């Protein structure tokens, strides 16, 4: 029973960490996207960012917590533990590349939307290849990205949420790639956290 309690506490701790990471990344990346339209921030933009769509960061946080817990879970279910580059430095590199993809999509001027979406897709696949390379990760990433895009589109369609740019295709093209990269990144973090927990448990059993 103690191990069960330990397990749930660990799960909660992991979930909280993932949630906070997700919230933080959502805030920062939202800021990046806003930057695309406003080059120089007037004083009130920051407050409007934090106030207007207040529910977006928590949603992202929850989603990232779920994804980050789901990945190690699926790994263990499938019985193929992830062994590729299990180091914090690699995870940090992955996060940096993810932020970089967002940065590129926000800052770089692309000639057309096809180019943008192709570049982003290539970058996302590259991210997966560099840091993940597992079939389960790829599948889960694709699935979640599609779901998330669909949900966003539904929200936009219902008018709950609105994009500054009216281009429908434009939105559709870059969103899935960003979602995919985000899923891979959060999965990477979740796996690393799970590995840490696993190690701690192992050490404890060794001590016993």
């Amino acid at each position, binding site marked *: 029973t103690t191990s069960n309690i330990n397990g749930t506490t660990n799960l909660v701790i992991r979930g909280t960490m993932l949630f906070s990471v997700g919230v933080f990344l959502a805030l920062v990346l939202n*800021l990046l996207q806003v930057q695309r339209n406003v080059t*120089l*921030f007037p004083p*009130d933009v920051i407050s409007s960012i934090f106030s207007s769509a207040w529910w977006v960061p928590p949603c992202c946080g929850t989603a990232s917590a779920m994804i980050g817990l789901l990945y190690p879970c699926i790994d263990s279910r499938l019985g193929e533990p992830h062994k590729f580059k299990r180091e914090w430095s690699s995870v940090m590199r992955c996060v*940096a590349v993810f932020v970089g993809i967002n940065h590129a999509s926000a800052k770089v001027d692309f000639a057309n939307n096809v180019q943008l979406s192709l570049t982003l897709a*290539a970058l996302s696949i590259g991210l997966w290849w560099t840091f993940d390379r597992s079939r389960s990760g790829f599948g889960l990433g694709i699935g979640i990205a599609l779901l998330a895009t669909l949900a966003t589109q539904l929200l936009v369609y219902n008018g709950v949420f609105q994009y500054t740019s009216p281009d429908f295709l434009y939105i559709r093209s870059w969103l899935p790639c960003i979602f995919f990269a985000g899923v891979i990144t959060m999965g990477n973090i979740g796996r690393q956290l799970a590995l840490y927990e696993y190690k701690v448990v192992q050490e404890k059993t060794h001590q016993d």
Partner: protein
Amino acid sequence: MTLRERLREKISAAFYHHGLLCASYPVPIILFTSASILTCCYPLLRLPLPGTGPVEFTTGVRDYTVPSHEPQGDLGERPDWYRGPPVAYIQQVLVKAAVSPWDSSLVPVDVFRSPLGRVFSLLEEIRNHVHSDSTGVRSLEALCLQVTDLLPGLRRMQSVLPEHGCLLVSPGNYWQNQRELFDSDPDPLKTIQKHEPKGLHTSATLRDLLFGVPGKHTGVSHYNRKRVVTYTITVVLVSYDTRFLGSLRSRLKQLHPSANCSLRDDHMVHVHFKEEIGIAELIPLVTTYIILFAYIYFSTRKIDMVKSKWGLALAAVVTVLSSLLMSVGLCTLFGLTPTLNGGEIFPYLVVVIGLENVLVLTKSVVSTPVDLEVKLRIAQGLSNESWSIMKNMATELCIILIGYFTLVPAIQEFCLFAVVGLVSDFFLQMFFFTTVLSIDIRRMELADLNRRLPAEAGLPPPKPGPLRPREAPPPPRPSPHTITLQTPAFRNLRLPKRLRVVYFLARTRLAQRIIMVGTVIWIGILVYTDPAGLRTYLAAQVSEQSPLGDSGGGGLPPHLGVAPVFHAGDPTSTLSVLPAPEPTPLPENQSQGHHGSAGAGPRPQVPPAVPQITWGAEDEEGWRRLSFRHWPSLFSYYNITLAKRYISILPVIPVTLHLSPQEAIETRHPQDTRHPPPPIPKVSADLQTDLTLYKVAALGLAAGVLLVLLLFCLYRVLCPRNYGQNGVAHGRRRRGDLPCDDYGYSPPVSEISPLLLRGHSMDIECLASDGMLLASCCLAGQIRVWDAQTGDCLTVIPNHGVFMTQTDEGDLLRRRSVPARPTLFTDQPDLTPLIDTNFTCQPPSHLATPPRGGFDFGGLVEPDRASTAGTQATADWDSSVWAMELRGNLIAAGRSSGKLELWDAVEGSLRCSNEDGVSGITALAFLNNRIVAARLNGSLDFFTVEINKPLGLLQYRGAPGRGSMPPSPCYSSEDVISCQLTRSVQCAHQKPITVLRAAAGRVVTGSQDHTVRVYRLEDSCCLFTLQGHSGGITAIYIDQTMVLASGGQDGAICLWDVLTGSRVSHVYGHRGDVTSLVCTTSCVISSGLDDLICIWDRSTGIKLYSIQQEVGCGASLGVISESLLVTGGQGCVSFWDLNFGDLLQTVYLGQSSDGQGVRQLLVLDNAAIVCDFGSELSLVYVPSVLEKLD
């Protein structure tokens, strides 16, 4: 597959060689790398420094045309941002207004109320100005910048700033540009103040925006003593029309002439603004940097098992950063100008390039076997990871190449930087990081070496001297036999290089001097360049001393009813031009009234009776005094960014307004008279200025005193010790003194205590070592093996084996040949330590053994039997050991009977023996698996030791150390060892061979027949016969670097080139035999029978100096490091500093100084020396010399 394998092998080999190179020449490689980094970064100097300050460019107004977008060829100094039309043209109308003459009936509010009121009519004039000519009619409405809404966040400014129309700002905006509102405003100052932000505000305030001049220069206050109000009307134009602006200018000038105005109006200034980074933009940037640092932290945390983690982590980061810098520099060199924001893409570049390779390299190198040599470790580590490094690099290059084909310019540029960065990173990893790693690993080995030294080596004096717990005999002595020389001389041994650098800095007080000079220069620069600094301050003071300053001297404020004093006949007034409409002359004056108030402190200046309106050079470009964020913030209110764009500021239009007191009184608001009068000045201005000057002087003095005190404190804090006091007495350093004598630092007194190894019953004859083990043989024929590190006796091979009673004839024959020796030694007293000289004193055990000549069947004995029963009668006990060598754990002993025996040093068993030769072995050399034996009859025998391993593997035992000793093979007890005579050179020399040395694959023999012969070890082939001595050869030195020196009975020393066989130099140095020869990289050291030690320069053959030793001291020499020589004397060993020839220390080996001389002296790897001392061996550690050479 085969191709891949081959490629892999080649890459691995290349990396291996590269690793060897890096580890062998660390300093040149690091220098080379630094030079190339600097070279590649040199183009970066041409790039503009990052900063957000605006850049200016001035052009003439007359020939101004809007610059084209395309860059043109002959632009010269034209900056590259000056392309295309500007965001806007700024036309300022600078209004200076004053009520004149000042009437005593006026109240302070009158100073600004009516001048401000005139803005509305001026605005009307500007708005309605129309210029019409043949090309058409132009009005301001058509030319000005039309703005729309303010940003949504600026609701409170809506009433003040224009919306939906021309961007035209003036103080009139406070009252919505309506005269009626202004007139009905009871307190205009309050209205202005209302819009000011609360608290500290650094950027442009609304007041600055509307007035167009800095707030304190406007003169809109109750305490304006100059009574001149300054403000601007700022018109923002979107297009430039010369005719319209010209007509506007002339119209305004015509309406309001400024008579004494000489403002230049032929230059317009273009101001380019850099990208401004706000807090909101900073957040993502900071996030990326946080992630970057986390990445670097987690990466470098993995560095382990090295001497200095931080050092290596720093090296890794330096590698990545300088590769990035190199990449930018190279790209700039080849004409690509970076357009991306460096700060933004930098973290991503670091992440792409990554620290992985560096970490992999470190890991691979530290996981190589520790006992290998450093360069081998580096090479092996490199070659282990070569394939993965190359593969990773190829993959990354491929990915980046794919990125290059996205055809998005920004991504292409990023990829270009990344590719060049990757390549330069690879270069730096290979050259810089590998070398740093090799240095680090070497340091770690040194540290290990230090730890391995026994504690006795560096004990403080109160501790008892040599104490071997297992070797009980010597009782703890109070070490009277250990004499310590004067401490300063020994310091050279103890001080590491970095300490010497520190002491050098301390002695010369370099740091303090630099700090002092730097501070003085800094203060000087500060004083002379700071706009608020001393220069302007003094200039202001001087200008206020002009007679104008006391124009109102003693005058009382007008409202007190005292008439103002007019100085109509003021001498300065003649200098000024009389303005036409003015009834009174206008003397020149500073319009900057604030200086006076700042300098005069609480006593304000007496206001002039007639407000002076002057135009100075500072009015020409009054906008310069505004915050540099003035224009960006004005535009940003309308969501127009000036980042990376420029605006053109046109020359100001000066407007002078003189209002009559009547007008001022008319425009008064009823409440205006209620304001309090300004304070009353009491002291004359004359005194005031004097006082101010005194104050300046006093302040300066105080600041100077404070500075001196501060520096003094700084000095005391930084240098608490009195370095100088002891140094003064010594005076200048003499040559030959040690560099660290001048300051009173005395290192702890250190002593070198010899460690006596006891056990032999007779004098020690032969001594051999391979760095780990030490073998000694005494006259009694007993061989003892010692641990060279600890001095423990490991094995004793006694000579009292089972003696056979049988005799055979061959043995008798051998015995007959022995007596030839005494005759030989009559003319050759002590040629080489390896030859038994003390023939008269035969060991008593020899004499006591009645049956001479034990039967030996060593050659016939089966090897396995020998290993099990080695101590049985296989050895030739009655013949003495004349020569002995030790390699690995094999002792080769050459006996007087001509028999060569191989003993196991650890087990003490005889492994094999060879008795092919009959003449006594006078010298032995044991190199790799070859043994060379020189015999008394002048023949030279080459033996091969063959090891038949049961498992066939040959393990190498660590002997990382001096180049002369290659890693020794370690023979296990199961091995079958056989010793075969491969070649015997019967007549190597005509006369007996006296010296035999082997190194670097060469065997060198010296003989009585005056010749030196060089043989190749592999095929026993005689390469050269070197002739040059006119006496028998007595000493030979050869080492790994193929330097060959020989000394003869004629006292001559010859240096030879081993490769060509030519004589390099030939010097005579000694009267009598040369007894010993040693070389370092720079000099040759010889000792002779004349008790002289001579030190020669190796390249030129010039004698540097010689040391006269005591008579009868030993002839043994050893070089511990490049600068430390050790010589054996009578019962003592002496350490000499080779650079200066100073005696550093003499260590007495026994209690009585009249002991036996030290005849043999070996330098071990761990900076220990071992020498014979009668029947004892003495192991002396030199703790401070821990240089590792390789």
